[in-house]
């Protein structure tokens, strides 16, 4: 058995066991903790598939913030589940079984795990991974392919498909050979893709400049190829934050500045927190800034930034947090993030391109312009996400049914 598949099977068994445990446990905080563990394990499954960005998000949002917010909810609803009479509800059972069967039937048509002949490796995606979408069609504002540029080879290289693609993708001999290469976990082409010198340079860039495009294809897809979607995702988060403020925040005269429960009598916690918060903040900014090079980006980095503030509030109380980030400031920053994102798009338009056409930011070196635009946009996302997470935490902690 393939090692990747073996580890995957074991991990998924563990995930299933955790899910059953979450349902079975009566104590609500035990099930909250187990939900965090479920997310961490699910993130491990993504890590095993080498989808680092998904894994990063799952760990930061699912394992970190969600668990803290669930515990915040427990403050309002109490620790124990209400006892209910357990009896078999036949229609529900039949419905669930049917849904499960339909889902399993749906997976029968999916390609094998790690199948290099899967459509995702051939249709459209290699083009997007090589960031040659605008490049191929010669869209105004994008560069033309240079003389003697082997586009086929370039695409195949970045699309991580091993060997020449046969005319007939169902050619089994080729498929088996490629799967064997994948089983070694390191596809030679994947390794080569991390060594920029291995590829001839872009016509406008020195060879060590990641060939003039953003190395992490996930970020380039999120921020450039589907930049509109990401902008509106950020807007959704912004709307959630604003709605929460409107629904839950008490008027100031009722005193939201009452001190919270302080844990500063715990010397070890206090010292460790003070020591680690700067590093958490640096890590958060690193994740945001580094999003175009490695895994991570605005969403994940924003969550990491928010956890630093939440840690501060946990140890030193909410009043101390409000002295650092007063609610008016966090509200303003929430909007500022969305403004930065859409403002970057508007600047691209003013410079003569389309909305969010980052290459306009540096017409001489379009690749650098794209990097700059994506970094700006990621910072916008990061600011909004961190401040909305902080607001959710504050409102949950503030509104207590005493």
């Amino acid at each position, binding site marked *: 058995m393939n090692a990747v598949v073996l580890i995957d099977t074991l991990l998924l068994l563990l995930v299933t066991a955790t899910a059953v445990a979450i349902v079975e446990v009566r104590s609500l905080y035990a099930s909250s903790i187990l939900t965090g563990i479920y997310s961490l394990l699910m993130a491990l499954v993504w890590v095993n598939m080498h989808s680092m960005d998904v894994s990063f998000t799952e760990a930061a949002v699912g394992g*970190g913030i969600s668990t803290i917010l669930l515990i915040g909810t427990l403050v309002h609803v109490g620790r124990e589940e209400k006892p209910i009479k357990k009896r078999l509800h036949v229609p529900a059972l039949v419905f669930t079984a049917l849904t499960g069967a339909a889902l399993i039937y749906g997976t029968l048509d999916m390609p094998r795990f790690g199948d290099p002949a899967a459509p995702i490796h051939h249709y459209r995606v290699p083009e997007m991974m090589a960031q040659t979408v605008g490049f191929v069609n010669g869209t105004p504002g994008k560069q033309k392919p240079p003389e003697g540029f082997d586009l086929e080879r370039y695409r195949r290289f970045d699309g991580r498909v091993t060997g020449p693609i046969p005319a007939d993708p169902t050619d089994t001999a080729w498929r088996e050979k490629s799967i064997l290469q994948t089983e070694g976990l390191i596809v030679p082409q994947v390794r080569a893709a991390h060594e920029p010198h291995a590829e001839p340079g872009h016509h406008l860039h020195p060879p060590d400049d990641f060939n003039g495009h953003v190395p992490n294809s996930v970020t380039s897809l999120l921020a450039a190829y589907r930049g509109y979607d990401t902008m509106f995702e950020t807007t959704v988060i912004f709307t959630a934050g604003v709605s929460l403020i409107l629904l839950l925040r008490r008027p100031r005269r009722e005193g939201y500045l009452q001190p919270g429960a302080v844990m500063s009598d715990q010397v070890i916690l206090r010292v460790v927190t003070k020591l680690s918060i700067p590093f958490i903040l640096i890590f958060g900014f690193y994740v945001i800034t580094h999003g175009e090079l490695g895994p991570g980006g605005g969403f994940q980095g924003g969550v990491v930034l928010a956890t630093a503030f939440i840690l501060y509030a946990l140890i030193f109380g909410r009043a101390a947090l409000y002295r650092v980030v007063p609610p008016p400031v966090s509200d303003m920053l929430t909007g500022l993030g969305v403004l930065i994102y859409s403002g970057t798009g508007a600047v691209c338009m003013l410079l003569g391109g389309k909305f969010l056409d980052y290459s306009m930011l540096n017409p001489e070196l379009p690749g650098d312009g794209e990097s700059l635009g994506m970094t700006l946009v990621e910072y916008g996302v990061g600011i909004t996400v961190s401040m909305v997470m902080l607001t959710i935490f504050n409102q949950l902690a503030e509104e207590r049914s005493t």
Partner: protein
Amino acid sequence: MSTVYLITAVVLIVGAFMLLYRALAGPTVYDTILATNAIGTKTIVFVTLLGYISGRTEFIDMAIIYALITFITTIAILKYIEKGRLD
């Protein structure tokens, strides 16, 4: 993947199964918390191991975020148990 690393990974997962049992059966709250914390530590080692096997340095970032998250959630849970509130 060489056999040694594969065995290490499998042992880590089996250890996580045993800890999950402790988290469920644990007579006190603190058993549950300690067990989930240990699962978190195992995941950190597991991610680093996978990163070493596949030769990609980005996995270290993942390990850091796992460490950060297990630390903060544990503090949140303990504060809830001690004070009954989070703020």
